[in-house]
């Protein structure tokens, strides 16, 4: 034992260190592990994600994806904390209305070059990237599309002899006609609770007052906005369940599923949830969002996957672009109802051959993107929704509500 001098020990140590320094590049280069923050909540969404992950695992056995569910209402708080504290996820799902806020806080990575060199870039219209790009830089890949549409009780409509509405005026009449509180039946499952802000903004735009104008300026046209708000609050008062002011996603879906309401305004993502309770084409049908007096506002929003950390960026890129594969996109559609963002995938006969998807396919033609500017999401959620609820509980008039919205918008964008 005494033969081992201090010097020989040091030599051995040096060799060991050299060896360990080399090994990672040899043994770990093949495997990467990334985590994925998403806001999928329903069972069907979860099933869709599982499906995509299974396909991805088969294609990329070397990349391990750990999904982490972040409840949608908490998403911004969580990601803000993660960015500020430096514990970012590798990939995050970002909806278009959150893009500008996240970009402003420095959460997103510019992936313009990767996108430019992507073999499936041609499958996507340029417009698909519009709400995740700024100043020519691209920050995400569209994973799937939220196509706004409506579900209606086909059997009730037929029974009452009402045609499927194509304008907001017809929509209102149909909703009122189908309302019978004595029977516990309401024409319209209006979302006045959490998440109800987007239809409110859409109504103002449909009546001629967009928030974000074509020239990039921001502002509301008071009179037209009042008309839109009046329309929507009348709808809530005359055709919606009394719980409207507190009804969020779960409540409007359940209301429709359980035969309380005749129509709801949502997007294609809830299709499988509805179809699991009601018979497609018999008990319920789907329709495009009816046109307003000024314009037809049906949103096409995209869920993007974005790289939110520099670590394992290559693996992250493999994961986010995988959502553009037609097989992955259609598998996801079949589990959930969310439309593919890829034009190639959307042209797949599995979609075009299905009558129930017709309204969504149509909407792809005239749908428009969400208004997006820094502060948009916060203003919509805290000012617009709150003001609208105050109309429903009789605290203020539509005029006062619009004034509150205008003031809030000025504050948010000041």
């Amino acid at each position: 034992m005494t033969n081992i001098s201090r010097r020989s020990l040091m030599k051995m140590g040096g060799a060991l260190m050299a060896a360990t320094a080399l090994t990672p590049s040899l043994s770990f280069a093949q495997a990467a592990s990334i985590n994925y923050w998403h806001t999928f909540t329903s069972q069907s969404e979860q099933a869709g994600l599982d499906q995509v992950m299974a396909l991805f695992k088969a294609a990329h056995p070397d990349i391990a994806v750990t999904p982490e569910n972040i409840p949608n209402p908490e998403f911004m708080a969580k990601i803000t904390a993660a960015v500020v504290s430096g514990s970012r996820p590798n990939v995050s799902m970002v909806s278009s209305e959150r893009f500008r806020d996240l970009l402003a806080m420095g959460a997103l990575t510019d992936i313009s070059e990767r996108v430019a060199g992507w073999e499936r870039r041609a499958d996507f219209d340029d417009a698909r990237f519009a709400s995740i790009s700024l100043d020519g830089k691209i920050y995400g890949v569209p994973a799937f599309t939220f196509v706004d549409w409506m579900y209606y009780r086909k059997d009730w409509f037929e029974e009452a002899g009402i045609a499927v509405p194509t304008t907001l005026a017809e929509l209102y009449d149909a909703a009122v006609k189908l309302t019978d509180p004595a029977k516990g039946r309401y024409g319209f499952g209006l979302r006045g609770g959490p998440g109800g802000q987007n239809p409110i903004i859409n109504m103002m735009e449909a009546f001629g007052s967009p928030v974000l104008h074509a020239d990039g300026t921001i502002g509301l046209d008071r009179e037209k906005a009042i008309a839109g708000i009046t329309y929507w609050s009348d709808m809530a008062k005359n055709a919606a369940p009394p719980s409207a002011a507190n009804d969020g996603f779960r409540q409007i879906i359940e209301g429709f599923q359980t035969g309380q309401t005749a129509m709801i305004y949502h997007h294609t993502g809830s299709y499988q949830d509805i179809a699991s309770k009601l018979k497609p084409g018999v008990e319920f049908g789907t329709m495009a969002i009816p046109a307003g007096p000024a314009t037809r506002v049906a949103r096409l929003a995209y869920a993007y996957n974005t790289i939110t950390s520099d670590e394992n960026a290559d693996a992250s890129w493999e994961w986010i672009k995988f959502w553009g594969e037609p097989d992955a996109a259609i598998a996801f559609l079949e589990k959930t109802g969310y439309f593919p963002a890829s034009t190639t995938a959307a042209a797949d006969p599995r979609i075009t051959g299905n009558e129930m998807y017709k309204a969504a396919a149509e909407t792809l033609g005239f749908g428009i993107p969400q208004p997006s500017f820094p502060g948009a999401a916060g203003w919509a959620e805290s000012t617009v929704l709150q003001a609208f609820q105050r109309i429903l509980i009789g605290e203020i008039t539509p005029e006062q509500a619009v004034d509150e919205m205008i003031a809030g918008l000025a504050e948010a964008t000041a």
Partner: protein
Amino acid sequence: MSRSLNMPGSRPPRTIWEAISPFRLIGELSETRYWMYLLLLPSALLITAVVLYPTVYGMQMSFREMRLNRPDLGNDWVLFKHYVRMINDPIFWVSLRNTAVWVTSSIVLEFLIGLIAALALNRDLPGTKLLAVLILLPYFLPNVVAGHMWALMLDPRMGVINDLLLKVGLLTEYKAWFADPTTAMAAAIIVEAWHSFPFFTLLIMAGLKGIPTDLYKAANIDGAGAFAQLRLITLPMLKTIIAAAVILRVIGLVNSPDLLLILTSGGPGRSTQVLSLYAFQMAYKDFNFGYAGALSVVMFVFLMLFAWAYVRLSKVNQE
């Protein structure tokens, strides 16, 4: 150095090893009056890191422009801009009033239910041990779970509460509790009371154990009835514990928006908007951390004032 630490009468080190032995040095240091401060140092550092620093940081934030989604505005000092805005902000005043209603009603309800439960459980009857565990269950539920559970139970379509009230005849039709401003606040307060009354039960039960039974025997002989015993013996004896529980609960209620966030998000309208929820939304929905910080500072000051006044008025620190 080490010489100056030598205590009179301590044995001088015999060898060089002993002279530099850390055990010997620590041993000698522990005999000096600096030892106390050295022992306090780790916890002092910890408190500075996790309490003092964030508090001070939050306070300085309230004097700055800090909008995460508007990097173009910079992070300059804005002095009292946020506080001035607050004075003119109707939502702030509504939130302040709602906070007062929310906190006061919840505390009163929680205390009353907690006291009754504690008095009931304090009897040494068969089954009270099991009952005590059952009654404490709500408190073990996280706010989020309790919130979602009650949101479902109070649901206007499938909620079991509506069903029951309808069967009993207290309701004629399903009620959308959270869509009506008056019932929304009341329902939220009941949920909160349900969730947190075990906190009072727990503390009051501990306090009751500390009251000698002889006092009640003496009171029985003295002719004090059950209510007089409660008013003149039990409650005065529990004063300190109740005061501590109330302060802790008030702080908890003022500071945590989670239950209201889940049940109502402050709605309908502003009817259940409270300060903590407003600050939370200001920070994480509007990303205006400066204004959110100012709201938090105001809450902090209110809480300090409350705790001070409450301790004063309840005279808990007097013999």
